[in-house]
C-alpha cells in the first residue's frame, strides 16, 4: 500500500479552515427558524402544557405530560403529517430522579417536512416509570418501545409485550441503561 501523503496537496487558497472553529458563544443566540417556530406554536396553541425545549433549523423538541402525549402524537400525525417514527430514545436523568422518553418523528408524505425531525418527549418518575404506549398512533414504534422497556425499565401501558427482547432470557439484574447500573468489571 502506498503511503498516504497528506501534506503534498497544499491548497492554493490559504483561507481553508485548518483549526477548530471556536464554539459559538451562548450569548449570541441564532435567529429562531421560522418553520420550527410555526410548528411549535401550532402544538402549544392546542396543548398549552407543551414546553418547547429547542428550536433548530430542522429539529424541534417539545416536552409534554404523560397525560397528553397520546393526544399530541395523534395531532402531529393527522394534522401536521409526521408519520415516520425514526427512533425512540430514553434518558436516565438520575440527578433529577426522572426518566425521559423521546420519540423522534419524521415525515414521509408531507413534502415540505421531509428534512424535519420532531422530538416529542415526556418525563416520568424514576421510581415508577409508567408511560402510555403510542403503538396505536405509530405502529412502527412497537419494537422501539420494547427496547426502552427492557433497557431502561419503562412500563409502556398498551404495549402487549412483557419480557425480554434484546437481553438474555435469564437476565435478572436491573435495566442496563440506567445510570446506576455499572457494567461488570468497571
Amino acid at each position, binding site marked *: *500500500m502506498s503511503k498516504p501523503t497528506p501534506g503534498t*496537496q497544499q491548497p492554493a487558497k490559504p483561507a481553508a479552515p485548518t483549526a477548530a472553529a471556536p464554539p459559538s458563544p451562548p450569548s449570541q443566540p441564532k435567529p429562531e427558524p421560522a418553520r420550527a417556530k410555526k410548528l411549535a406554536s401550532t402544538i402549544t396553541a392546542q396543548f398549552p402544557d407543551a414546553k418547547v425545549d429547542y428550536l433548530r433549523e430542522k429539529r424541534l423538541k417539545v416536552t409534554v405530560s404523560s397525560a397528553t402525549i397520546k393526544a399530541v402524537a395523534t395531532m402531529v400525525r393527522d394534522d401536521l403529517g409526521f408519520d415516520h417514527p425514526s427512533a425512540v430514545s430514553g*434518558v*436516565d436523568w438520575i440527578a433529577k430522579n426522572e426518566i425521559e422518553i423521546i420519540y*423522534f418523528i419524521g415525515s414521509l408524505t408531507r413534502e415540505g417536512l421531509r428534512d424535519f425531525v420532531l422530538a416529542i418527549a415526556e418525563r416520568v418518575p424514576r421510581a415508577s416509570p409508567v408511560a402510555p404506549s403510542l403503538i396505536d398512533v405509530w405502529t412502527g414504534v412497537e419494537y422501539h418501545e420494547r427496547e426502552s422497556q427492557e433497557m431502561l425499565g419503562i412500563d409502556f401501558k398498551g404495549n402487549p409485550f412483557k419480557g425480554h427482547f434484546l437481553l438474555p432470557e435469564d437476565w435478572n439484574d436491573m435495566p442496563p441503561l440506567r445510570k446506576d447500573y455499572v457494567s461488570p468489571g468497571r
Partner: protein
Amino acid sequence: MTIQTEYDPDSDRIMAVSFGPQHPGAGHFRIKLWLDGDYLVRSEPDPGYIHRGEEKMSEYRNYIQNVPHLERPVILDSCGILFPYALAVDELMNNKIPDRGQYLRVIMAEMNRIISHMYFIAIEGLFTGHTTMITWCMGDRDFWIDLAERIGGARVTFAYIIPGGVRNDMPAGLTEKALDTCDWFEKRMDEYEKIFFKNPMVLTRMRRVGVLSKEDAIRLGAVGTVLRASGVKMDVRKDEPYSHYEDFDFEVPSLDGGDAWSRAYMALLEMRQSVKIIRQAFKNIPQGPVRLKLGPQPRVPAGEVYARTEAARGEMSYHLISDGSPRPYRLKIGSPSFKNLRVLPHLLRNVHVADIPIIYWSLNYWPLEADR
C-alpha cells in the same frame, strides 16, 4: 383437510419451531415460527443474541475512543454507522469540516454502500439457489474493499470517518484506479442483471413473494431499500443533505413491486447511483486539509443533538447528549435493521417455509445491527 391460516394457540395442528440462531439461513438470528405443516401461520422475531451493549459501552469512553468500537455492530458498512456519529459530534462542537474531508467522507460512505450491497445480493443469491451470484459478488466485492483499503488503511472496519473530518488523506494517484474500477463495475452490473435479476428461476422464486404495500411500509416504519422498493422515495441524502451531497448529481431509485425481487433489485439500482457519485467525487475533489485538529480528547460542549444519514441499509440515526464531560452522557443508535425488523412478522405470515430465507434476506437485515 384445509390449511389453518389463523393462529389459534389451542389448536393441536400448530407446531412451534425455532428458526435459528444456528441455522445458516438465519444468520445468528432466531425467528419463532408457528407452522401448520409447511405453512407459516405466525412468526415472532427474537433479535437478542449478540449482546454487545454498545450504547452502555460508549458512556465509558471518550468521543474519540468511541470511534473504533461503534463500527463493530455493522462491520459491512463501517463508514455508514460512523457517519451520523461524526455529524452529531461535529454539530455539538460547531465544527466546520474542510471540503476535502467532506468529499472523502462521501467517497468512503458510497464505497461502503457498494461493499454492503454486494454482500446482500450475494446472500440473497445463495438462498435463492443461485450459486453464481454469491461467487461473483464475493469476488467482485474485494475490488472495492481493496480500493477502500488504499484510502482508509484498514481492510474492513476502516474507522475512517471521525469527528472533525476523516482520519487521513487518500494516497496520490488513486483517482485513475478508482475511475477504472467504476468503469469496470458498471459493465459488471449489466452482467448481474442478465444472469440474476432477469433469470426466470430467480423471478419465479422472488416475484410476488413477501409483498409489502406502500401504506404498510410507512405504517410499520420501514427504511432504506425496503421502503423504497415499496414505492416511497425517501433518502436522507436528498431529503436532508449533509457533507455536500447536494453538490452531486444522482437520483433516488424506487420501485412499486414491494416484493423480495424488488428489494434485491433496489440494491443494484442504488449501486449504479453510488458509482455515479464516486466518479463525480473523485473528479471534483478539492485540495486542502482533510480534518480539523481536535486532539485526543476534544471538549464537547453540553447539548443534545439528533443526527441522521442514509447508510447502506437505510436511515441511521444517533441521539447524543453531552453534559460537557469528556464522555457522552447518553448515546442512542437508531439502526436501520432494527427499524426494518417490525416488517418481518408482517411478511412472514401465510407463506411456505421455503420462502422464509428469501423474505428474510431480502430485508437486508443484519442481526448485529439490531442487537447492537
